[in-house]
């Protein structure tokens, strides 16, 4: 009886601690949101909604519009996603369904290492190896040969988010039940036909979830992007242009901003990025629920 009581006591403590921890997370999110709103208030007051759709970013004349960065973030992220998705899908199918464990396990391990490399190292690597390649491409296409720019940033992002999309997709492909694969083989389907018509449709919601996770990371990625995007605060006209993302402009200008309204404008960009990330995740959740195999 005594033992039981002690058990109940610890049970109770444990429940209380975990409840507090869970509430703390919600508090943290709300706290960050409130801080961003307070700190960006001078900018919100000065520019209102105009902040979102004007394109002039001029600290000297104290005119701030965030559209170039919004475009920069969305363009580089989605371009990165378009580049990374086919590789992620192919890799996930290979590691989850085709490769024997002897081969799949070491490759998966190395891929997870890839996800752990600090962003600044990707940035350095991109400066030395991707920039010359992009410059060569730009000469081929008759674009100004900066080497840096939106396209280079998208390439780095694509490489950085690939392990995320790939490992989630691989895990869900591995979870496809053996018996429906056998049903397909039993009907005379080849491995390719089974993958195309049975495995991928079954795993589609998880594959999409992995892509969204990758997108979330691409939207917020700062260091590597700041190093290769060219840091030009004007509306980009093509993917070869120099540009800035929301994250890169904050990283780039925050230490130099002396005017209060400049600082507030940068924080407001942070607030926008926060809101966009939340919206993207909400939409993705809805799509994942709709795609789910019942």
């Amino acid at each position, binding site marked *: 009886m005594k033992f039981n009581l002690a058990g109940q006591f610890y049970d109770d403590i444990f429940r209380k601690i975990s409840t507090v921890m869970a509430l703390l997370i919600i508090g943290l999110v709300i706290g960050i949101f409130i801080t961003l709103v307070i700190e960006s208030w001078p900018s919100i007051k000065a520019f209102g909604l105009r902040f979102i759709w004007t394109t002039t970013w001029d600290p000297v004349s104290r005119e701030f519009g965030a559209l170039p960065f919004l475009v920069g973030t969305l363009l580089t992220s989605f371009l990165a996603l378009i580049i990374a998705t086919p590789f992620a899908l192919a890799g996930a199918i290979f590691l989850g369904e085709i490769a*024997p464990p002897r081969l799949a396990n070491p490759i998966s391990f190395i891929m997870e290492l890839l996800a752990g490399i600090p962003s600044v190292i990707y940035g350095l690597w991109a400066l030395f190896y991707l920039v010359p390649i992009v410059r060569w491409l730009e000469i081929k296409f008759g674009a100004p040969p900066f080497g840096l720019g939106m396209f280079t940033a998208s390439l780095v992002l694509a490489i950085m988010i690939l392990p995320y999309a790939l490992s989630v997709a691989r895990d869900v492909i591995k979870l496809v*039940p053996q*018996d*429906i694969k*056998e*049903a*397909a*083989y*039993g*009907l*005379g*389907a*080849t491995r390719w*036909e*089974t993958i195309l*018509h*049975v495995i991928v*449709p*079954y795993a*589609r919601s998880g594959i999409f979830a992995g892509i969204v996770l990758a997108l979330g990371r691409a939207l917020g990625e700062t260091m590597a992007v700041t190093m290769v995007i060219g840091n030009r605060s004007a509306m980009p006209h093509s993917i070869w242009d120099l540009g800035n993302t929301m994250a890169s402009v904050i990283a780039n200008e925050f230490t130099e901003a002396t005017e209060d309204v400049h600082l507030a404008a940068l924080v407001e960009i942070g607030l926008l990025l926060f809101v966009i990330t939340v919206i993207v995740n909400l939409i993705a959740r809805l799509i994942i629920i709709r795609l789910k*195999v*019942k």
Partner: protein
Amino acid sequence: MSLERLPIIFRTEDLCAYYEDFMAIKHINIKIPQKQVTALMGPSGCGKTTFIRCLNRLHELTPGARITGSIYLRDQNILQLDPIVVRRRVGMVFQRPNPFPTMTIYENVLAGYKLLGIRLPRNEADEIAEWALRKAALWEEVKDILHRRGTFLSGGQQQRLCIARALAVKPEVLLMDEPTSALDPKSSLQIENLIVELKETVTIVIVTHNMPQAGRISDFTAFFYLGELVEFGPTAELFTNPKDPRTEEYLTGKFS
């Protein structure tokens, strides 16, 4: 009914199947008659499922699995054919109902065509779907909900859907691996009745460890024990007058 007078559809010669170094079935020689129900019986681990999975070369999908000997399907050694071709001619129904969860009932029935990239004209597709569902005794229950997901059906209905899916590609043989073991008694009985009707259309080879079931539905019974084919003959004969003591012991429940 004697085995000698019936046309033979499957004949194995010295068939052995392995998982890595383990020999799961040993030197099987059997002749399976056409358009009859042949039951494979025996205790768990006796090799009956391995044997049936050799007949459509599904055994080879397991890593480390291999087959020696020969299996003749109408005098063609299927071990020398493309497994894809073999599996089109020899359909299979599994232990657990496994309709494709991403497909509707209609799509499930025609999955054999879709998977292989065969496009049927609309009316022909409708005809095949109705024919297969009628053969599987499911048509009346699903004709108004053809475009709902297959997994929405009850377990017994799902299994009949899987039978329809296998029949739709018009196989010569239908292999069934304990098709009623995951079902309730009423659904099991429906499937049993269906099997008896289906032998007009297709040869059936069924694995079961349910002795009364084998007695009710099969024309011939093979008794497997420890990877060997112990005895094979007309069901009535094998049940009433087993020649091998091991068969008799199994039938009288001395081991299971």
